[in-house]
């Protein structure tokens, strides 16, 4: 039985999966800073309003992982914004996150060279996103 995507339970599961990953700590040893994921509303797919998710990463450790409000999300070092369908594609590995960014399907606010320099960390975190069972709102 999976957890419903974009909920606090899902964020907890995501955090636990990252902490349990044997490679994450080493790959992410240089990463400093929080990331917010912003999921744009899509009422037809069970997302009536924008969802804000805040994740704190620090040198291979994982801190706060919460569903949050807009202000907290916008305080993150990196803010990634996209439609629900795109996030779902990324989580399911149907669309690479870097490609989505370059194609304009995701928008990012933050230091792009830093992300490029640490692209292995980004890829690892996204890889783990698909590692635990998720129930998607439009599939309930």
């Amino acid at each position, binding site marked *: 039985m999976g957890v419903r995507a974009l909920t606090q339970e899902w964020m907890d599961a995501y955090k636990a999966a990252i902490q349990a990953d044997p490679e994450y700590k080493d790959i992410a040893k240089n990463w400093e800073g929080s990331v917010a994921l912003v999921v744009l509303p899509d009422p037809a797919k069970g997302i009536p309003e924008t969802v804000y998710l805040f994740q704190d990463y620090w040198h291979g450790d994982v801190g706060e992982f919460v569903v949050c409000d807009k202000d907290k999300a916008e305080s993150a070092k990196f803010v990634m914004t996209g439609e629900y369908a795109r996030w779902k594609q990324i989580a399911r590995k149907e669309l*690479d996150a870097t490609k989505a960014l370059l*194609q304009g399907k995701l928008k*990012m606010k933050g230091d792009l060279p830093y992300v*490029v*320099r640490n692209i292995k960390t980004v890829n690892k975190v996204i890889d783990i996103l698909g590692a635990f069972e998720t129930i998607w709102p439009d599939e309930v």
Partner: protein
Amino acid sequence: MATGYAGKFLLVNLTDGSCTDFTIADSELQKYIGGSCLAAKMYLDRYPLDTDPLSPENPLMIMTGPMVGSGFPGTSRFTICTKAPQTGIWGESACGGTFGPELKRAGYDGIVLEGQSPEPVCLAILDGQATLEDASALWGTDIYEATDLLKAEDKSRKVLAIGPAGENLSRIAAIGNDKGHFSGRTGLGAVMGAKKLKAIVVKGTLKTGKADENRYKEVLKTAIAEVKGSALAEGLHMMGSDANMDLGMVTGDVPIKNWTVGEDFDLSFNLSGPTMREKYLTKAHACANCPVACKRVVKVDDGPYRTDEGPGPEYETCGTFGTMLMNSDLAAVIKANELCNRYGLDTISCGSAIALAMELFEKGTLTTDQVDGLDLTWGNMGAVMPLIRKIAYREGFGDILADGAVHAARKIGGDAMDCVVHVKGLEAPMHDPRAFHGMGLAYMMSNRGACHLQHAVLATEQGMASWPQLFDMKDDYTGTTSVDKAALVYNSENYGILGNSLAICHYLVDILKPETILEAFNAITGFNLTSDELLEAGMRDWTLKRGFNNLLGITAKDDVLPKRLLTALKEGGGAGSVPDVALLLSEYYAIRGLDERGFPRKEKLTELGLDELKDRLYR
């Protein structure tokens, strides 16, 4: 007269010193558009093909396109075309910078250079007036020196020049525009050198019109907004093309140690765009009319590779003088880039030739005595710097490498050719087809030899761009499969090749929506092509150049990947994977309309309005 064009071309006969104007019918312009496509048509119509590329009979064509000089983003380009000294087949090399728009302002859509001058000359084109001037005093200067001397009187003049490599007929010689922009590939600088043409200087004040000024203004706003919203544009501005170093190391795109190693994150960390930005970047620089500004201006303050502030290396150069040589010192790459710029050497071919030498040195095929006492151990950049000079001046062992890796391997013999990664004589750029099989097919089918700039496969296969509105394609392709790649390559060729006929930067082709580029093209020219017609123009372009090569003896047997690219790597994004050449080619030949010999089929040539080429191919 079709709008967007200057309306005339300049024919320069360097043998008798005459300069005359000629025109091309609007119907031909609409069919072949401009740039390298129009150049291929002009070559086929007017010149014999069975000539030595360095003989007076081989013309050199410097072409703009209808959008050049319009002010539309990315339209700074010009394309230099000829039968290539390095490969003996169709040769072209596009360039950004300032020369293209200035040539249009000086009154010309292009220049055709015939013959050979008895003495070194410089061609000056000032507001429609072309003259040949004595350049004896410039002969022997490097590109930076020649450019400074030619701008001494008037800094606003735009200069195209060769350096010692071109003068010494190196078949990997480049042509430089205002020090920072280069037509590098296929050895076109040697053709200028053979013609004793040291430089071309242009300046003009003329304006080309637009078919619909208001329509153009609207689409210009759209284009600017698309650039501003593009992460690709932002990345290029902040990190230059070398942004690919970090990303490519993860995907397996970056060749290492002459294509024998699949992954080395220490190398990519030290050679990457972010590192260049942190340590050496002084400012970003833009070609004319470009809001992206991807060019790097760099300075190395101290150490053995100290440089003045000047043009910085592209990703390709960070590959050939970095990862390919097992060199992790970015300052050394910057210095090597400066030397290649000054001498007028293509950095891809020069670095690839040196990588070959280092591998053969390690294997013992080349001894210290044979390489003039240099220690060509991997990563020894102290030996690379003098070797670059030797190549440009054809001194000692430099003469062996001066025509590129393929010619060098032929001279060295033994199994040296097994260590060269090339297609049709042109060394591959820094994108590994073992990680991206579509690129392997694109290398095999590119009309100038292994190339990433005759098509848009790099963008579509690696996911930098997605154009489902233009042709059937996915947002995300797996690199290490050959399935579904033939159609992707075919379509990406038909669209991407237009960059060199419209003369618009390939990065802007990737960044802007196809409908935006088409709208701008139509607003400028008034041709009002549909997207299908635009793609048909791309098909015609590709087929015309393929026919050119077929007439020179290119057949299906030449559409191959070298042994090394068919040997799987042990590590990295492409580990264990090689392109399925048979699958790729069989599907591609069917889609492209090639027969079993690799010739365009008669019905395809008729469909594209290339009956004259058909008559020559099926004579």
